[in-house]
């Protein structure tokens, strides 16, 4: 117990140090950074737009000190204006560090320095992990390996100029799901079984959905609305679907197959049919919560845009078509995947497990 407290204190100290260091890391930056020391509101202008939205435009005069570059220590005055709703622009506060961009002798604010917050939040997660008896090493290894694979994926994607996106997504998904299973279950035949089920279920559901989409001529799915209009639309969309559903399907196959293994351990001469039925019964309970997870993640991602559409006087129907049609298509494909995983995993697992001897 005492050892534990010492270790936790140690972790907290490391996190705090890292946070403080990133607060003072301005010398690592090439772009000038200014710490805001004084904020003066110059002008406030309340206005109502054509859709009856009332918003206030505020102009600020900011005084700050350079923290890096050759101008370090010198003062600078900056102007900023923002709407109180702060969609794209923002209010600056005393004490904030901001990155500047320079054109000639004029500086404009480019961005807020956010790295300190990131490091602190990450540190908070790590502290929480250390406060409890989790098997941290496994978890961290799997996350790090997956991030590494993702980094390689991005590098290749940029290198190939998006050409082979779909192929690369498939390879990346095979890798990351494999890594996740290997780390959680170890190099066992159970991991292989879950892997097989995951791959089969994902493939079948994606192929079925693509077929259905093609049959309906992509009606109601505005593929051109993918994030940032990245091309080729269909590949980008499918890649996003595959990535987002993969984690949930992994969860599902692991749950079903490990429960079936338990069952086999308790009842040695269990029949294949009984196992299959039990698998379906277990899976049934998982469908609802798993679809819910994706439902909220997909909708949350589009909240900003949806509210912008609504506040600009668009009808709910039009807003949803423009913002959520892709999200809903993604959700439906995922839901089909989640449902199909139940019989596919139960089938594969019951076939393999019933032949095993325990």
């Amino acid at each position: 117990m005492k050892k534990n407290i010492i270790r936790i204190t140690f972790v907290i100290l490391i996190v705090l140090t890292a946070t403080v260091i990133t607060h003072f890391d301005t010398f690592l930056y090439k772009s000038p950074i200014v710490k805001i020391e004084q904020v003066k509101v110059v002008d406030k202008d309340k206005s109502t737009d054509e859709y009856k939205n009332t918003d206030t435009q505020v102009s600020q005069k900011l005084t700050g000190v350079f923290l890096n570059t050759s101008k370090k220590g010198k003062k600078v005055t900056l102007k900023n204006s923002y709407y109180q709703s702060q969609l794209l622009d923002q209010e600056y506060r005393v004490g904030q560090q901001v990155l500047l961009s320079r054109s000639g002798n004029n500086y404009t604010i480019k961005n807020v320095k956010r790295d300190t917050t990131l490091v602190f939040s990450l540190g908070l997660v790590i502290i929480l992990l250390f406060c409890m008896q989790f098997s941290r090493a496994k978890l961290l290894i799997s996350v790090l390996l997956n991030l590494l694979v993702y980094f390689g994926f991005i590098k290749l994607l940029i290198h190939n100029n998006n050409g082979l996106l779909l192929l690369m997504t498939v390879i990346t998904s095979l890798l990351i799901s494999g890594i996740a299973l290997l780390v959680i279950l170890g190099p066992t035949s159970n991991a292989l079984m879950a892997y097989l089920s995951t791959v089969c279920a994902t493939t079948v559901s994606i192929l079925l959905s693509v077929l259905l989409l093609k049959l309906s001529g992509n009606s109601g799915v505005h593929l051109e609305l993918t994030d940032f209009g990245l091309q080729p639309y269909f590949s980008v969309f499918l890649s996003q679907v595959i990535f987002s559903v993969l984690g949930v399907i992994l969860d599902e196959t692991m749950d079903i197959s490990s429960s079936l293994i338990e069952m086999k351990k308790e009842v040695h001469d269990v029949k294949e049919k009984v196992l299959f039925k039990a698998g379906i019964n277990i899976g049934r309970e998982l469908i609802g919560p798993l679809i819910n997870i994706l439902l909220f993640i997909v909708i949350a991602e589009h909240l900003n845009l949806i509210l912008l559409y609504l506040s600009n006087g668009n009808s709910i129907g039009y807003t949803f078509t423009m913002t959520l049609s892709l999200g809903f298509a993604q959700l439906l494909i995922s839901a089909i995947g989640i449902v199909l995983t139940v019989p596919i995993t139960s089938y594969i697992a019951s076939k393999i497990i019933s032949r095993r001897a325990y």
Partner: protein
Amino acid sequence: MLFLLGAFIVLLLIVAGSRGFSLLFGLAINLISIVALLILIADGFNVLITTSIISLIILIVAIYMNVENANTANIAFKTSLLIVVIILLITIPLEFWASAQGMGVEDQEELEAFSLAAGVSFPQLAVAIIVVNSLGVISETSVAISSGLNEIILNKPSLTPKEVFADGFSVGNKILSTQTNTLLFNFFASTFPLFFLMNSLNYKFTDIINDKLLVAEILTMLICAMGVILTVPITSYFVYNKALKKSANSINK
């Protein structure tokens, strides 16, 4: 799209049988709650208060419609509520500090036709986004842990409180890693177009790690992970408390 919807409903009814109807019903209620949330916020109601109320409704539906055992459902619901409150308390200062609300310069092209003076508080909406994002993960985690623990206690009623906690963590370990995967893979899904765009805009490393959109995505993932981590001890505690009361009652009798 209709084909997809049709296929989903048919498959769901084949696989889940009559249970499929209640699943569909639950999903429909959740969707309606979310639409209500959007309309209320667009009409100018306070973002945080509206989100809290709607989250409460969503949690009730997500937990009580999916869990048949009342004991499990009660504990899962209590835990989820507490976790959502904690997430709110963590998110508000972190979002304030990071100023990662709204949309980024990367979205500017898409926004040209809009009046940006929307009158909606996007900093508050940023908090709402994280809360909504976490609802599914949190409710599933708490249900999984409380049902797993309840089953263990049923089979071995003689467990000491310490053992209940240890069991909670062994159930929690697996759930934590699968939820981490779900969160991580969803992060991959939503950020690869962003990374690609950043590259074509010639972002430097320092631009990337301070980018508003990316920081918002990472914060979402990290805060949801904190929620999942905290769910484990809190659920174990509630289960343990319940078991303690039960054993005290049986002794008195």
